[in-house]
């Protein structure tokens, strides 16, 4: 399978050249490369993908609301990227291990995140939001691109143990400019590591357009590293699922790394601290609204007579329940006592830090003595 590469930097313009299975109006179009990977997907599974995306959008909206209400320090919305995140993450096997960036709310959702997991880090209660071992997802990464190398290291371990696991890493289009991401691709290729790179090209790295990072379609870089790649319509959940199944199959069967560029769009701000009006054209946003991933699948299901109002209402109610649980978990969080700032710095006793902890404990005790 070879990718179709057209050297045009503006991915919005040549979106038609991305792999897709569902057209923006929801109609199904034949895709000789990818169809086989989703031949088994029936209406019930499509409805499940739809439900995932609705729930994710609701979680995301709740995150924004909680931030606006002062409950979270920051939130990184993923509205518009639901198909990329759900489609790719739902292709994973339980034993696979994910190294995400901060925007992968949908990925941790698909891996079974608990309500508090979405907010713990953004609320500032803990450095990481979830238990990496239970979700098999590394802590959300803020340093752009650093996690891609971790995935390759992990995958090297998999290779040495000759198991059928795959390491997966997610990153943005801006991240592709980082040395680490390029180094990760070199290492992955050199060692034929079972790793899948998922670039979520959401067109913007804060205020910088993708054209500043790359004058060539991002998926086109991977073959230069010896890594086969696919560029997929990131707002087509079925295509994302299929592409990821292709990539995972490739890596799992010992053929080495694979790369996916999912061409999508960040509908909201970069984070709740950002004002996209300063750098982004309203018309551009409008054109992407017409490619909304949830509406696309909805249109497809409705046309097939596979989604009715009752089911929609049920899905919305389920989404509200998840958001409610997330809010309750957030508001119910109890900040750890002061000495917890010292917890977990080292695995073994460190005399310098232990002394600081003692000093601070003694200082704190003076207040108790006063009381």
């Amino acid at each position, binding site marked *: 399978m070879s990718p179709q590469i057209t050297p045009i930097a503006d991915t919005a313009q040549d979106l038609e050249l991305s792999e897709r299975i569902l057209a923006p109006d929801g109609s199904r179009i034949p895709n000789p490369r990818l169809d086989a990977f989703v031949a088994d997907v029936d209406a019930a599974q499509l409805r499940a993908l739809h439900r995932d995306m609705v729930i994710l959008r609701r979680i995301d909206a709740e995150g924004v609301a909680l931030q606006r209400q002062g409950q979270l320090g920051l939130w990184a919305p993923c509205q518009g990227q639901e198909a990329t995140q759900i489609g790719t993450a739902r292709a994973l096997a339980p034993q696979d291990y994910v190294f995400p960036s901060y925007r992968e709310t949908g990925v941790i959702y698909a891996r079974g995140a608990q309500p508090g997991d979405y907010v713990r880090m953004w609320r500032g209660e803990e450095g990481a939001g979830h238990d990496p071992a239970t979700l098999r997802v590394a802590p959300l990464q803020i340093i752009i691109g650093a996690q891609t*190398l*971790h995935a*390759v290291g992990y995958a090297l*371990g998999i290779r040495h143990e000759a198991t059928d696991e795959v390491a997966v890493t997610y990153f943005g289009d801006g991240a592709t400019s980082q040395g680490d991401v390029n180094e990760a691709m070199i290492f992955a290729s050199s060692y034929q590591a079972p790793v899948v790179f998922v670039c979520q090209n959401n067109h913007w790295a804060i205020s910088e357009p993708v054209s500043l990072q790359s004058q060539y379609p991002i998926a086109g870089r991977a073959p230069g590293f010896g890594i086969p790649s696919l560029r997929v319509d990131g707002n087509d959940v079925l295509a994302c699922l299929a592409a990821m199944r292709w990539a995972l199959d490739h890596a799992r069967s010992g053929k080495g790394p694979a790369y996916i560029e999912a061409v999508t769009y960040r509908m909201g701000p970069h984070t709740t601290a950002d004002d996209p009006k300063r750098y982004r054209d309203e018309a551009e946003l409008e054109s992407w609204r017409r490619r909304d991933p949830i509406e696309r699948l909805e249109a497809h299901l409705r046309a097939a007579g596979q989604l009715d109002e009752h089911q929609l209402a049920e899905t919305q109610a389920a989404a509200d329940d998840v958001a409610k649980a997330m809010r309750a978990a957030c508001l119910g969080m109890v900040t750890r006592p002061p000495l917890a700032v010292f917890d977990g710095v080292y695995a073994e006793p460190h005399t310098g830090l232990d002394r600081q902890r003692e000093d601070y404990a003694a200082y704190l005790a003076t207040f108790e003595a006063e009381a």
Partner: protein
Amino acid sequence: MTELTLGKALGAGLRQAMRDDDKVVLLGEDIGRLGGVFRITDGLLDEFGAARVIDTPLAESGIVGMAVGLAFRGYRPVVEIQFDGFVYPAFDQIVAQVAKLHYRTQGRVKMPITIRIPWAGGIGAAEHHSESPEAYFVHTAGLRVVAVSNPADAYRSLRQAIASDDPVIFFEPKRLYHHKGDVELEAPLADAPPMGLARVVRPGTDVTLIAYGAMVSTALEAAEAAEDDGVSLEVIDLRSLSPVDYDSVAASVRKTGRVVVAHEASREAGVAAEVIASITERCFEYLEAAPLRVTGHDVPYPPAKLEKYHLPDLDRLLDAVDRVLDRPNSLTGVEA
């Protein structure tokens, strides 16, 4: 007891650590068939194979980032950075990832990574091959920092670093790679003094002279010269820069009342500044003179022909000793 060079002792330490635990893997540039540019990993590829002695592409951030991923997977990676001046491209992975992941995850992810760095000057090397970056790492919470000064310590503490569940920045004074000493290859690790413990290398009564790495040799020379002059120096090898064993240091200072701290690294916000601040906090009332630093200058590491003016030598150490003893010195003028 076996007589080994410091370099061979390090190689023996790696070999033993790899035999003890099959999760120990080595990563680095040229460490396989070449055995490393300093030949520290010589023979390890033959014994353990390419899956455990991993020659890497030439990318330091990549090497350390890969080690992070391997640690996620339960390995104990030992990274070789080819030269001190080449650790900077990996700085982000070290301080933002290796150092922090245990804390961020409240211990759910361990980073038992050892990062070996051939370190410091005095060998007439090219630019970027003689740097002393230890303060950057000492300043970073979550890392342990070790600097060795002799073959026995090198053998033992490298194994301890690898066995530690914490990440360790392991500095190897390349100036001493060929220095010989006795090593107890069979001694059980469990009986060894902890990695963080300082050592009194030479007892004395008048001044505590604190050093680490190759500077310990210079400190010992100074102690011998001072003895001829009727002054007794107690030389302490810190061995660990994070944590610093302040109990041993303070015990010595309480005895002597006078302190000189020496290192090759430049002065501002360096390890000596920290050690002296801590001594002052801890045993101010025992001090008979202001503690002094003898360090490299606050300049980029100079070209090889000039490095002798940068590195603290015997005379600069003795001058500082004279100053803390209030004897005629470079400030008061030479004795008439």
